[in-house]
């Protein structure tokens, strides 16, 4: 009597795992296709450029003041906490080091990726799922659909992640200088030296790679999740959460691998 439900439960689990594997594979394949298409100059027709520009404006330009304000506030709070704590323990020399490693290298890229994913990626995934359901015989599938409709949106989101991360990191570094030295120019040498010590070439390359992977994930996974959704109306609401969950998992994996490569 007990064996049948267990077998059913195991079967359901296997099906879910299989579905997850399929979804991950589709996402990876879509990400690969999107990356190849994004790196191909022939992709950037006028229509694609226009669509990518509009998506970039929606994802980055409109939220730029908010992101700048948030990064400035967060940077000031964190540098004050870190510098006062380090000062109490006689470790003031390491305040900039800790600030850069925690906030600039880890928190801001993750925050920006999650912000863009929640604001634009979820909406994009839902729109893709709706598009698939609303068209009985969609012609825009495969490579052409990728290039024409989905790729510009993904590129826009990915570039938004890069732009917002760069702006947020620079704002946080500037605010950290002000938090440490005020508006005096005489802290420049010590600050530059500390920045130079933290940003070793390998670390800088790893940081660039991590942010690029974040951008790729934010640009590709929500769209892939939308494309993987069932072609019926009940599947539409599930497309965005599934895409976000996959995205969070991927972001966490990238972050974990980055930390492990850097500190383990």
């Amino acid at each position: 009597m007990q064996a049948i439900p267990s077998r059913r439960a195991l079967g359901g689990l296997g099906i879910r795992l299989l579905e997850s594997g399929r979804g991950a594979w589709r996402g990876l394949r879509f990400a690969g296709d999107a990356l190849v298409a994004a790196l191909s100059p022939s992709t950037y027709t006028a229509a694609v450029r226009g669509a990518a520009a509009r998506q970039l404006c929606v994802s980055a330009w409109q939220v730029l003041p908010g992101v700048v304000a948030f990064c400035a506030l967060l940077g000031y709070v964190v540098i004050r906490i870190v510098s006062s704590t380090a000062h109490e323990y006689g470790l003031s020399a390491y305040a900039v080091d800790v600030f850069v490693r925690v906030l600039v290298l880890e928190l801001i890229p993750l925050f920006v990726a999650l912000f863009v994913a929640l604001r634009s990626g979820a909406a994009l995934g839902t729109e893709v799922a709706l598009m698939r359901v609303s068209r009985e015989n969609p012609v825009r599938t495969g490579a052409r659909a990728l290039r024409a409709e989905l790729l510009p949106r993904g590129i826009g989101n990915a570039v938004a992640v890069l732009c917002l991360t760069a702006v947020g990191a620079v704002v946080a570094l500037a605010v950290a200088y002000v938090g440490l030295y005020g508006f005096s120019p005489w802290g420049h040498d010590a600050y530059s030296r500390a920045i130079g010590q933290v940003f070793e070439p390998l670390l800088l390359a790893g940081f660039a790679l991590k942010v690029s992977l974040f951008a790729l994930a934010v640009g590709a996974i929500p769209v892939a999740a939308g494309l993987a959704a069932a072609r019926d109306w009940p599947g539409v609401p599930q497309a965005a959460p599934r895409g976000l969950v996959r995205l969070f998992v991927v972001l966490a994996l990238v972050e974990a691998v980055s930390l492990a490569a850097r500190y383990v």
Partner: protein
Amino acid sequence: MAPPDAPEETVDPRDDLAPEVRHAELKAATLLVLLAAIVAGFVLYVLYARGAFESVQKLVLMADDGAGVTVGMDLTFSGFPVGRVQRIELAAEGKARIEIDVAKKDAKWLRASSVFTLERSLVGGARLRAFTGNLEDKPLPDGAVRQVLRGDATEELPGLIATMKRLLENLDRMTSTDSNLSASIANVRALTDRMTGPQGALGGLLGSEENAKKAVLALDRANALLASLDGLAARMDRALARADEKLFGDQGVVEEGRKVAVQLNAVLADVRESLKKADAVLADAQKIGANTKAATEDLASLRAEVEASLRRVSLLIDDINRRWPFGRDTEVKLP
């Protein structure tokens, strides 16, 4: 599935998904330029911050142990970074070889006689420090190799712990019940018990009541002796007063002596006057002597004159005698 030959230009993304934004391409271009500027500027800034554009000279430090030294760490002079570790390797002789780039503009602080230390503290990382005693010394040459002196607080810990352990063992031995310290404290307690007895601290110090009584008796005698000495001193005072009177009173020896001295002084004044007179007499005598000498010189001629006169007188007398009738014939006539 879509037909493979479906024309791409039939696809217009603006119709479906992409939201409308005014001046979208301009804003997107602005964002891309901003991104490129930030990336390029930050890379240049990091290169500058890492000293990529500085003119540097090499300094090689040899350390017995390179633990704690990392690539990129600073070499400081008076708390200011003047160099940066570029490379660490194990040298052929088994020592840590630390290559440091020292900026040319800061190389003036390092001299041939500079000393370099590698310090490891309990909190924080290792520190490479340079000390220059004589800034007038020769500049440190490019590629100079120097030995690093070690100042490691953590290395002292095992020795410190061993010493602390020995100290605690000694303390434990000292505070055990059969230790010398306990016996001493017991003795002190016995001593204090005796000191609280009828004879007080003296009884405690001298060991028995009898000895304490002897001590008290000795003290009494000493007091009596001191009293007699006091009377003796009073008598001595009186004797001294009398002697003082004899010596320094109005009729005392000193006064008399003073008078004698006054008289002697007057006598001496007289003597001085007498001597002055004698001196004058001597001067006169000297003059007389001189005159006598001159007179003595004339005496010979006077004598000659006198003798001549006498001879003439003699001749005169002889002549008179011859002429005188009663004159005798002085001639002897021989037969």
